[in-house]
């Protein structure tokens, strides 16, 4: 199954690249980026497929047992813009092109220091013959990292100013997952890069599993009255579990249920709320209206302005 998925993805990627993208890159004098372009096509195709799968799974669920009626379709449309920009690779690709030289410089600096970043397989040699297990271990460790990044997003005022864009949505649906400020995404990439220095980046040969994880993340934002049961709620973040995190009383520093995939982190660190019948209203009452109902660009500008305000207020205090 994994192989079949990979081959299908590879065949379509190769065909698009060879038939359309590579000739265009050649004409534009961009052959230097050919290998990277191939990866970005795969990223975009994978993203498109992910959106379709997420839609096919989540939309019927939202129609089946919605937590609340849809009253603001405009706000959902903004979330769709976020999703398309992120999942189809447009924003990540721009960041990659802009930061490629910086990344090469940084990699050179790390190499000059004599440090060779490890991978989990070099730290635990038994994993070499079990790439699937290695991948799953990466998922657990990175999810732990995401739990703490998420807590810091709520802990520091300047960071919350950015992250509150994600929480301002009062009409939460499965599209809300990618509703993040660009700067917040860049910080997330740096966070990931720092972890990668310690444990390396996960193997890239399991896109199907990544798809399942993305589906779980999107589903956790869905407008659906769905709990995974007494045991399931403790194993995987459910729409119920994550809605509590988005509840109006949960905004800023009073947060609960920070986990992205595995609730065990909230359990361990005392931030879990496992009440199974609790589906609060979502949104951040203290956020400016633009963050709830403004368009993508407006939210980006307001987010930046709020972050600057948070930093300078702190500096002046």
């Amino acid at each position, binding site marked *: 199954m994994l192989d079949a998925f990979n081959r299908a993805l590879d065949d379509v990627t190769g065909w698009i690249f*060879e038939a359309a993208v*590579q000739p265009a890159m050649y004409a534009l004098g961009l052959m230097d980026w050919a290998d990277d372009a191939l990866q970005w096509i795969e990223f975009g195709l994978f993203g498109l497929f992910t959106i379709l799968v997420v839609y096919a799974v989540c939309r019927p669920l939202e129609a089946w047992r919605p937590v609340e009626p849809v009253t603001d379709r405009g706000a959902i449309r903004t979330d769709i813009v976020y999703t398309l920009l992120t999942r189809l690779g447009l924003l990540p690709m721009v960041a990659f092109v802009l930061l490629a030289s910086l990344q090469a410089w940084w990699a050179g600096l790390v190499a000059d220091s004599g440090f*060779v970043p490890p991978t989990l397989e070099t730290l635990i040699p038994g994993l070499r013959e079990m790439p699937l297990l290695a991948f799953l271990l990466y998922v657990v460790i990175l999810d732990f990292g995401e739990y703490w990044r998420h807590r810091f997003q709520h802990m520091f005022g300047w960071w919350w100013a950015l992250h509150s864009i994600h929480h301002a949505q009062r009409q939460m649906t499965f599209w809300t997952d990618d509703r993040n400020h660009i700067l917040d995404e860049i910080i997330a990439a740096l966070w990931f890069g720092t972890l990668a220095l310690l444990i390396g980046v996960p193997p890239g040969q399991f896109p199907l599993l990544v798809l399942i994880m993305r589906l779980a993340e999107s589903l956790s934002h869905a407008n659906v009255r769905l709990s995974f049961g007494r045991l399931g709620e403790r194993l995987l973040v459910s729409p119920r579990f994550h809605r509590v995190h988005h509840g109006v009383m949960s905004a800023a520093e009073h947060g609960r249920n920070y986990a992205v995939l595995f609730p065990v982190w909230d359990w361990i660190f005392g931030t879990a709320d496992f009440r199974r019948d609790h589906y609060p209203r979502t949104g951040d009452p203290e956020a400016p209206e633009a963050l709830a109902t403004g368009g993508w660009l407006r939210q980006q500008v307001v987010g930046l302005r709020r972050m600057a305000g948070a930093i300078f207020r702190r500096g002046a205090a």
Partner: protein
Amino acid sequence: MRRLAALLMLCLLAAARPAAADLVYVLNSTDATISILDAFTRQEVRRIPALREVHHLVLSPDGRDLLIADSGGNEIFFVDPATGDVRRRERISNPYHLDFSPDGRHLVIASLRRNQVDIYDANGPTLLARLRMPEKPSHMAFSPDARVVYVTLQGSGTVAAISLETRQPLWEAPVGREPAGIIWHRGRLIVGIMGSENFVVLNPQTQQIERTIPVGRGAHTIFPAPDGRALWATSRVQSRLAEIDPDTLEVRRLIELPGGPDCIAFDPDGRIWATLRWAGRIARVDPRSGEFETIRVGRSPHGIFVHPRRAERN
């Protein structure tokens, strides 16, 4: 009767099959695996998991080890080419392209993603020097006296010469947009210019381009046939193999080969094995007829190597 005929046919086939067929190593860069194929049956006999991103490989001067570079995994695998067994691994920072100097003393590693060229003592490998280069050091070639290594700089559009004696850069010459593959050929360097349809012939003495060899859009890598009768070049955009006369440097023949031909290896019969980067396949090409078949491997196959084993059964 029909059963008997089938049995006889099987026996004939078994007799025709070499006792030990050549092994073909293919580096599946996106899958992070190494496919080992039986060259006779064209079936994959083994797949070795790598760590992240395997691109290029080279045989050690004594023929004992096949060095496989995993750039994303920061590691080089030392593999027994006769069996595919991994003998050892070395932690090496981002090894992309690698080759031994002709005297076997140095192992040079180009790191495309960190703009550096590393010179190692081949016996360790122990790092002797690390040179920060302009953008994207890609492929390399050596002068036959092993004094100089020439590296294409994909992002800069140049070839850089580095002294292996002083371990310092000697010069850098512009050659065209996105240079990739490079070989030493009779006192000259032949360089694939990916952003054009040409290979260029660079005189390392004058650092001047003396001529161009048109092969097709996206000129990429070039390899001399083991019998010395031809040079074989690839173009990745126009998807071609080009046979070049080693004396006149004229193109003798073009073979259309869809899928983005990249690296090439030769088997003892002179057949060409080429990775098709965009197709997840390799091609086995008969250079006499130009006919080819393709074989499914992993994703984005890049480096390729044929280990001849037929002689080993005698």
